[in-house]
């Protein structure tokens, strides 16, 4: 795959292109980390795309009316608020995660579009610096994504919370019975996913230097879900490794990038990315079978 891309394009393997791929997908990385942790606990959040839009629109409105820092706060607070809403309904009251977040997916998009019928732009310069500037030669947004990934790896790898999340995913009853506050953990995870979506909405808006309410983050939930599933987290939760999830995100980003560089039309792009997904699923199964044989 990688080889095909490398051979067929001029720039696939250049450092420029590789850094650009991370920068382009910073938002995806951020949401995927939080989403993967939620999925390991056996829950999903399909509302992330719209949450990004709502947070982005809030940031945009605040950038232009109050200032840069309030704008950043606005994105994070809105993201967190949506997450808290999901967390309350699903974690606290036990409502169906899929239906509730599908509902929020529609509703948050609708609210974002109502708040900002036209796209919002013309932000203070600092926003553009956030989106395009870099530190030590690496874009800020890549630093942000790296920080989020590091935090995720830390929490899942070596803190009790990581164990609790997996326990909830594999056997919620057992987790409850050993005294893990299951409802509170699930609530917190939704809040974190909301916050991550808010952050990634902010990153997108900073990069775009504009906040289009109708299309920001449109269909993002499917990309995130695909990346996380590819990263080997089963839909029912209970296991998975964030390293592999990062690989999954990287893989999705690379395919997209490679297909663009190879200049194929949407028909072929669809067929190729479909086949790649199927192949990936096949490889994983093969791995399983081989491991069991050994």
């Amino acid at each position, binding site marked *: 795959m990688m080889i095909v891309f490398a051979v067929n394009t001029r720039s696939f393997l250049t450092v420029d292109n590789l850094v650009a791929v991370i920068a382009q997908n910073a938002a995806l990385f951020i949401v995927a980390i939080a989403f993967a942790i939620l999925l390991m606990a056996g829950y999903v959040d399909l509302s992330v795309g719209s949450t990004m839009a709502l947070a982005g629109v809030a940031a945009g409105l605040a950038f232009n009316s109050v200032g840069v820092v309030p704008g950043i706060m606005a994105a994070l607070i809105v993201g967190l608020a949506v997450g808290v809403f999901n967390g309350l309904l699903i974690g606290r009251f036990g409502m169906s995660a899929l239906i509730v977040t599908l509902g929020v997916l529609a509703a948050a998009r609708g609210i974002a579009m109502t708040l900002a019928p036209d796209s919002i732009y013309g932000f203070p310069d600092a926003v553009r610096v956030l989106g395009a500037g870099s530190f030590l030669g690496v874009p800020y947004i890549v630093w942000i994504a790296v920080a989020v990934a590091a935090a995720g790896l830390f929490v899942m790898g*070596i*803190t*009790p919370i990581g*164990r*609790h999340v*997996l*326990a909830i*995913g*594999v*056997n919620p*009853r*057992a*987790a*409850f*019975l*050993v*005294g*893990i*506050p299951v409802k509170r953990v699930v609530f917190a995870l939704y809040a974190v996913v909301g916050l991550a979506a808010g952050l990634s909405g902010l990153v997108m808006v900073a990069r775009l230097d504009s906040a289009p309410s109708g299309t920001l983050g449109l269909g993002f939930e499917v990309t995130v879900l695909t990346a996380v599933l590819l990263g080997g987290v089963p839909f029912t939760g*209970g*296991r998975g490794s964030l390293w592999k999830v990062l690989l999954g995100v990287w893989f999705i980003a690379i395919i997209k990038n490679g297909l663009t560089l190879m200049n194929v039309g949407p028909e072929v792009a669809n067929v190729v990315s479909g086949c790649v997904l199927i192949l990936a699923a096949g490889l994983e199964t093969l791995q399983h079978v081989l491991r069991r044989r050994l």
Partner: protein
Amino acid sequence: MSAHPSGGLRIRDLRKSYGTVSVLKGVNLDFAPGEVHALLGANGAGKSTLLGCLSGAVAPTSGTIHAGGKEHTGFTPRSAFEAGTAIIYQHFQLAETLTVADNVFLGVELRTPLGTIRRRDQELATQAILERLDVPLDPRTGVDTLTVGQQQIVEIARALRRDPEILILDEPTAALGRHEVEALLALVRRLAHEHGIAVVFVTHILSEVMAVADRVSILRGGTLLWSRDREDVELGDLVAGISPDRIDSATDTARQLGEELVRLDGLVTSYCGPIDLSIAAGEIVGVFALLGGGRTNLLETLAGARPVSAGQVTIGGVPARIGRVADAMRSGIALVASDRPHQSLFGRLSALENMLMPHYRRLSHGLRHPPRENQIFNDVARRVQLSPRSATTEASAFSGGNAQKIVVGRWLAGLDDVRLLLLDEPTQGVDIGSRAQIYELLRGYVGAQTRSVLFATSDPDEAIALADRIVVLVDGHIEAVVAPSIGEHALLALAQSVDISKAHS
């Protein structure tokens, strides 16, 4: 025993009902520190429900629990833990994807000042507990690779790790081998008598009660029948208390056996073998072994659920294909697996659906026939003494022993053309009265000499009571084939023979 001023646990007028069904009808009980208290009763009497109230798994409808110097109207798992109780559930509650050490410390992890897990310390502590239990097990193994018995050990280690003042065990020995049972009973005694812990112990194996208990209470239909010191009761009192209308099974009537029906020739499984065995029509053969002896492995292989490495199985003179479950079934082999929640029970489906699941196709001519289904269900439910005898109740709402009756009852309906029925721990969790009933039913099942039964058990009493012949497995090899008349001690000695020498090598 005198009641202690502090410590221990007192239950007053505890009630619990599910909807209109009342399961506990006002129970008063005292569990004193330093005492092993055996709680007995028939299947569905409410033992697990009572213990659930003490551990925070079940919210009582009314009543009070005095523990840790305070009066509680109910527990959450955490407040129960804080009040000093720890429980081992009848159906283990483990996070299968985590390691043994992670499970032992789940919810009470050891932390560094930074908030990270002290993984090494946890592993060492787990190791220490496992050594106390006399079970060699690597704390870093994933729980999903363990056998049922090993998982039970992990549950026990977890409870011990919490240094409880009140230790509650709900049928902790059901999945254990004899060796482990003895180690556990010794430990239980030590914890009570030397460390002053109040131990509550539920079991259906009365010999354990006589061996370990200081006090005995019997529940019947959700009320306390009586509560006495162990010295004041005889085995007969226990039997009469648990199942008043038990009929003594006719073990000694000589049974007629037919010609050879099943034959294993050099069968090699992933763990066992080579195994040569011949089973006559109408014969019931027991497989006895210690924990990890390979009983489950042998039975599951015969049922087609595990790959065969070599050898042949012949049924009625015809070579049977047993590579896959469907093939084995076609050859007339059926299995009742030992891991009930994972391998046998359809928790969310009704009792009737659970019982008839293997037979639907045979029972219907394309279309199902509900009246006939109900009739069969009622018939089998009556014969196995299922309680409640309700066809529509979800399987997960049945008590452990009653769920086992449903699973075994599947094949006792006699609807199938099974020639060889395999049962792994056929009466695990079943009370003493129903157990005799199931033995009787199994004898009736092979009575016409068209079928055979091969069952595996870790209970020497069961092997002796049910089997016509007993195969003793040690490390996957046939150590001996003996008659039940050999007696419990000789049987145990046979099963342990190599195990002990291996432990010292």
